[in-house]
């Protein structure tokens, strides 16, 4: 093994003549590094040229590269000829993505390991030292010159002598900046109080005072007998697009309480002035959590608690859906309901409290 380690304390003060034919290529490389303030202090072949170890490592690297070619070819073959169309069941298409992943992964890993082996095992090891030049004595001088140049520049511009120029330029440019921002802000801005949209839902009575029916997800109206005791149903306003994200605030939970719970619930209603909000033993609350707007959809029949699965706020249905645990701070709004002449549930009016997550100007 050839080892080139030099412990020269001082690199030769005289730069080498790189045209000297006696110099080896490495000598010139070392001289070049020296001119960049880098001293190659240790340079050692890891494997002797022509040795058994070198041949073995070369074979290993070559094997990795060939494996890459093989895996990449396999990827292409699978990509083109493997059945890929999705089909329910346990067909070969289930393996399509895993096979692509394995072949691509193996191809990339093999080329990676090949390059790493090449770099780490076959190339000579070296230790080089480079100066950082942070405390260069010339830097203070250089700083001084640059500073003076910049101050001179300011003098040339004459900003100090002619302050009006600077002031008027600033005054002129400020509105230009605003001009750049105006179309963006102006185009994006949208009044949150347009049509009173934050305070109304799809249950607001139609023009002419027509009360809105409560409907199921498929649009059919609901009779009281459709919900068994203790049961609950998600209901929507029976209007166009009522069952869609266009009325994301409207989904409501209609619950048929047990007799004893209904009594408790009715008393609680009366305490907050919601005397006629229930119909019989039926009660309806907004499904949109007052915390972050997720649907509070897990109803625990035994305890009459409603749980929001996003942040675990819990609401007690029999106490006006008051929040009893978790981060929600406001009760779920209650929808006043009644049954119309045809025997279907309708909303007596829109929600009387704001539905959905809280915000600054909520009354």
């Amino acid at each position, binding site marked *: 093994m050839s080892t080139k380690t030099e412990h020269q304390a001082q690199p030769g003060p005289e730069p080498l003549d790189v045209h000297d034919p006696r110099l080896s290529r490495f000598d010139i490389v070392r001289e*070049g*590094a020296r001119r960049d303030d880098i001293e190659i*202090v240790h340079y050692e072949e890891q494997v002797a040229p022509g040795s058994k*170890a070198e041949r*073995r490592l070369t074979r290993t690297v070559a094997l990795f590269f060939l494996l890459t070619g093989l895996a990449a070819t396999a990827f292409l073959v699978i*990509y083109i000829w493997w059945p890929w169309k*999705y089909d329910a069941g346990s067909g070969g298409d289930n393996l399509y*993505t895993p096979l692509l*992943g394995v072949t*691509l*992964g193996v191809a*990339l*890993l093999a080329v*990676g390991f*090949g*390059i*790493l082996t*090449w*770099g780490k095992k076959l*190339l000579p*090891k*070296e230790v*080089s*030292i*480079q*100066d*950082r030049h*942070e*405390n260069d004595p010339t830097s203070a001088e250089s700083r001084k010159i640059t500073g003076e140049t910049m101050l001179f520049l300011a003098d040339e511009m004459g900003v100090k002598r002619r302050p009006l120029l600077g002031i008027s330029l600033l005054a002129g440019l400020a509105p230009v900046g605003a001009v750049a921002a105006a179309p963006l802000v102006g185009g*994006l801005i*949208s*009044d*949150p*109080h347009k049509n009173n*949209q*934050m305070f109304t839902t799809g249950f607001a009575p139609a023009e002419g005072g027509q009360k809105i029916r409560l409907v199921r997800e498929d649009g059919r109206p609901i009779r009281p007998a459709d919900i068994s005791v203790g049961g609950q149903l998600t209901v*929507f306003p029976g209007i166009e697009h009522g069952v869609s*994200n266009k009325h*994301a*605030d409207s*989904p409501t939970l209609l619950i048929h309480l047990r007799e004893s719970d209904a009594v408790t619930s009715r008393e609680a209603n009366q305490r907050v002035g919601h005397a006629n909000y229930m119909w019989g033993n039926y009660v309806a609350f907004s499904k949109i959590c007052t*915390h*972050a*707007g*997720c*649907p509070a959809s897990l109803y625990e029949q035994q305890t009459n608690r409603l749980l929001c699965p*996003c*942040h*675990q706020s819990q609401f007690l249905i029999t106490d006006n859906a008051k*929040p009893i*645990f*978790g*981060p929600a*701070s406001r009760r779920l709004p209650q929808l006043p309901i009644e049954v119309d002449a045809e025997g279907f549930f309708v909303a007596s009016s829109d929600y009387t409290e704001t539905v959905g997550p*809280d*915000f*600054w*100007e*909520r*009354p």
Partner: protein
Amino acid sequence: MKRRKLDMASVPGKAAVGVDERFQVSTPLRKLLNKVFPDHWSFLLGEIALFSFVVLLLTGVFLTFFYEPAMTEVVYNGSYAPLRGTPMSAAYASSLDISFDVRGGLIMRQMHHWSALLFMAAIVVHMLRVFFTGAFRKPRETNWIIGSLLFWVGFLAGFTGYSLPDDGLSGTGLRIASAIMLSIPVIGSWVTSSVFGGEFPGEIIISRFFIAHVLLVPGLLVALISAHLGLVFKQKHTQWPGPGRTNDNVVGERMFPRYALKQGGFFMVVFGVIALMGGLFQINPIWYFGPYEAWVVSAASQPDWYVMFLDGSTRLMPAWEINIPIGDGYVIPPLFWPTVVLPGILVGLSTLYPFVEARRLKDTRSHNLLQRPRDVPERTAIGAMAVSFYLVLTLSGANDVIADKFQISLNAMTWAGRIGLLLVPPIAYYLTYRICLGLQQHDREVLAHGVETGIIRRLPDGRFEEIHQPLTAVGEDGHGELGYVGWVVPKKMNRLGALGPAIRGFFYPIEKPAEAPVSPGHPPVEPRQEREEIGSGEPRR
């Protein structure tokens, strides 16, 4: 007439001369080829982030060819039978098509998602490395700030990205994001309405998130990453203390060829691992979640891991609503504190930390040598405090799943998180501080007394003592004079060469094994001396 012969061997050289005559690149090129980089495994963590980002760009471009950023309602008619005939947004339908009807689309989508998770994970681990080793100190404060901004911009890229499929889960995330914007005092409703183009969900948010996700945020990321790397290059990398290493030099390898080869190989390995994950491990199976419907959610709705700490803080926040009784009354909802104020504080604390520490220690010098975490107990303990704070929040982000799997009360999990958030960080601080001091003390002990050999000796008076191998010549009191230089102190005999070098070769040795060295603790074993048998005197039968 003489025909000039073309000398093929001289062509590259001549071409190089020609290029240099025109562009004068040879000196800067040589400086680049010769630049010295220090080497340590912990310096590769940031590279994982960089390489994942490259994979993100590659796979992301593929996805844009097939994704349709529109919320117009369509009826799904693709290959996935369970959803056929379902009305959904065009965005969700095209995401399903990428998964089922674009050849190789699913692996691209999964690789994109996995590399996003890896990107954020690598950023966090890299940030911890930089913090705990003091690499953020002067002159590198700017790069620390750029790095912490990269986390938040990456966060934004991730959030806008996983909202794009418009499935049930991502829609729930968007709903929560809108509630977070709503909770900002005074301007909340205006911000939300402007971002969503009206009331949630509106019809434009997906197209806006799309352009943010494919142009604005990646553009910002590219700019910040370029600045980050440019500064590393300009300021030169930090290095660990060690022989010949000072604050004013860089000891390592020149960039070409070995260092560059290792980097290239490492990129391929990262890329390969992402490909394996993308092919083998399912992620975000959007077809199970269905289209987003405002009234549908399931339990265990968790965001990507790097968002979970904010989900956790939201869950732990008590229901403290602030009412301001002026006019009709105004509200600051409890959601505001854990989702807007907390991240704001975290950004401020992390970016300002280098200046706080420098001011506290009255330290204005430049530092290019790294510190071992044990040597700076206070900083290490503060870091441990931050990590434990983050972990409590992240675990709380999954507290419903933990409660379900381990049969714990959900409310108990919330309370454990609330109390844990206050108690665990100070405990972590104290323990880490003590561990650092203990490790420091042990380093000094080994330097003074030597390495434990594991050999117990019995003294003539019956006492037992362990033989120590001193690291240097010892004085009369048996103590060495070695000082601590901020680098690893050998603590095992193998580190001192007690174990011979490994014999190379896999099945058979490819080199002649060296003579097995003799452990300094053991004298060479000699065959047992034949002793005369002690018998009874009677001849044996």
